[in-house]
């Protein structure tokens, strides 16, 4: 019995290490972070419930992604969201893309990378961070951000693009230093 509990704990813990990756996938299918986060939360409960179905040696991320996918479908079903053929096609190809390119990272590797990101975020200008907060934290559209921050839509777009590039270079440089 205790072996079973240990196994369950280990599997759930491993699944939780994939949380950000799973939210990224759910966000691709569902359209906003807030709901994506709820879906992933729900998926963790399924992992907890069905941990015995996980096959040792197989990819935890892939298994969890399949569960997230089902939870997304379930949510759409509950909300009776109609999907056009184009949306369904895009969902399929998005799922294939994640299967192909989303890879698992070790906890240590991911944490080191995220520390670098937090460090680099602080080096973005206050205005740039404001745009990022509005976009990612509040989930506002470009137009809404422009209205709220008194900017032109194109300026919002450029600011986000430029600052994301800066962040990327900064994180990569920091990671190189670390290694």
């Amino acid at each position, binding site marked *: 019995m205790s072996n079973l509990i240990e196994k369950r704990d280990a599997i*759930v813990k491993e699944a939780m290490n994939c949380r950000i990756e799973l939210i990224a996938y759910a966000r691709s299918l569902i359209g906003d972070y807030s709901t994506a986060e709820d879906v992933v*939360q729900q998926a963790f409960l399924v992992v907890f419930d069905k941990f015995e179905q996980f096959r040792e040696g197989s990819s935890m991320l892939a298994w969890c992604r399949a569960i997230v996918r089902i939870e997304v479908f379930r949510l759409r079903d509950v909300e009776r969201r109609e999907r056009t053929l184009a949306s369904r096609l895009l969902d399929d190809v998005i799922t294939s893309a994640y299967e192909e390119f989303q890879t698992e990272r070790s906890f240590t590797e991911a944490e080191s990378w995220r520390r670098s990101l937090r460090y680099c975020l602080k080096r973005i200008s206050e205005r740039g961070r404001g745009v990022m907060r509005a976009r990612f934290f509040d989930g506002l559209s470009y137009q809404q951000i422009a209205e709220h921050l008194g900017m032109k839509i194109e300026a919002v*777009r450029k600011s986000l693009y430029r600052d994301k590039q800066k962040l990327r270079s900064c994180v990569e440089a920091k990671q190189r230093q670390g290694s």
Partner: protein
Amino acid sequence: MSDEDNSEDLIDLFLNDELDDDGKERLASLMENDTRIRQQFVESLSWDTEIWSALNDDPTTESVSLAQTVRLAPSRQNTSPSRGRSASVMLVITAGLFIAIGLYQIFDRTNNNLSMPNDLQSQQAPLSVARVTGLNGGLIWTGDRGQIVRNIKVGTELAGGTIEGLAPDSWFELQFHDDSTVMIAGSSLLTFGDDGQKILRLREGRLSANVSPQPPEKPMVINTRSAVLYVIGTQFDLEANLVSTDLRVNKGAVRFKRSSDGEEVVVNAHHQVTTDQDTTLRPMKIPNATYNWKSQLNGQSGNYGKWKPSTKGNSASLKAIPLVPPGTEVVLFLAGISVSRSGGSPVVVLPDAKFVLRGKLREETRVYFGIRVKHSNGEYAGMFRGDLNQLQPVSKTDEEGRFEAVYHLNQFVIDPVVLKTPMENAPSPAGLVLDGIWAFTHTNSPSGLEIFDVELLPSDN
């Protein structure tokens, strides 16, 4: 503007929830056809999510909406603030399993019909657009609301969705409400929908269709990775893979558009065309039948198994992989080959023909062999086994494990798995067009079966 620049804009619009259906189709098509764009999409979403997470973790982050007392974006209006939820999620991570157990207890899931990828239950399709009229082998249907159905039966009404053939012996016939039929065979993936206009997407595999007259302003549209077909009413075969789309029209006419350059051509009855030509699209008359065929293993899609390229001393081969036939707990090790028309000609099986299978085994065992055939108009004709009428002897191997097995056509009998289907099976494969072959072992463990080649010889002499 290059595809990559274009894709960047499309991904940006998609993330901003500003992409209309045309844009989604365009993005889906770009992603399907270009590895770099698929990678770009995943990286872009991953970056955004990491930034979102880092901002959530940052205690100094203050909502623009809170700071300015402005309304949140519509998608967030009915949800609790992200910070609160994020904090609880982070607690879940830091407290790990304790919280998970707590959540588990809070949410009574005993009556919750949760299903898992391997454990999915059938559900009723919400709005039927077509009915299943024939099927065999492993198939999965994913409906437009995400319901996944594995135990599809003849007569099941389906809403739009995606049907996937999982094995070489899989085939599936669907009849729309106007009596138009489409059939997929082997490892194929087809998405279909009908909201007044039938729109299909054959991602890969083979499709035969018999289309009733469609309204001229709303033709049936079939998309593949490399072509778009507009069908008013006709009968044709279509084969699509990563690099090309081949169309053969048996009756009527089909408008065929090559996606790469937008070139269009009308393909009339008894003509064929392929996107795999560098020059102008030119429909050619379908040549007469051929009676010889030899497999060409080059990693082509549509085959079932693991392709192994040739190495020093070893021929290229297709290695058998596990297959669990639906409704059984039997594990077969199976390799299947889709029979492309030889130089565009249909491959016809003559009454005194024989199949020669060459391959490799880890240990001597029986190698079972089956074929699928169709009528010259592309309609399903039956599946036959070459090892049932007379028990196939154990295949003897040489010191390197190589073997050769011969299956005579006069020994082929109808495959028992198709007897229970309502589809009409021809009494014999003789005179019919070869569509696919497969070989398998049943040894309860990997047999190491690899196929080097399969040959159809017209005469038994």
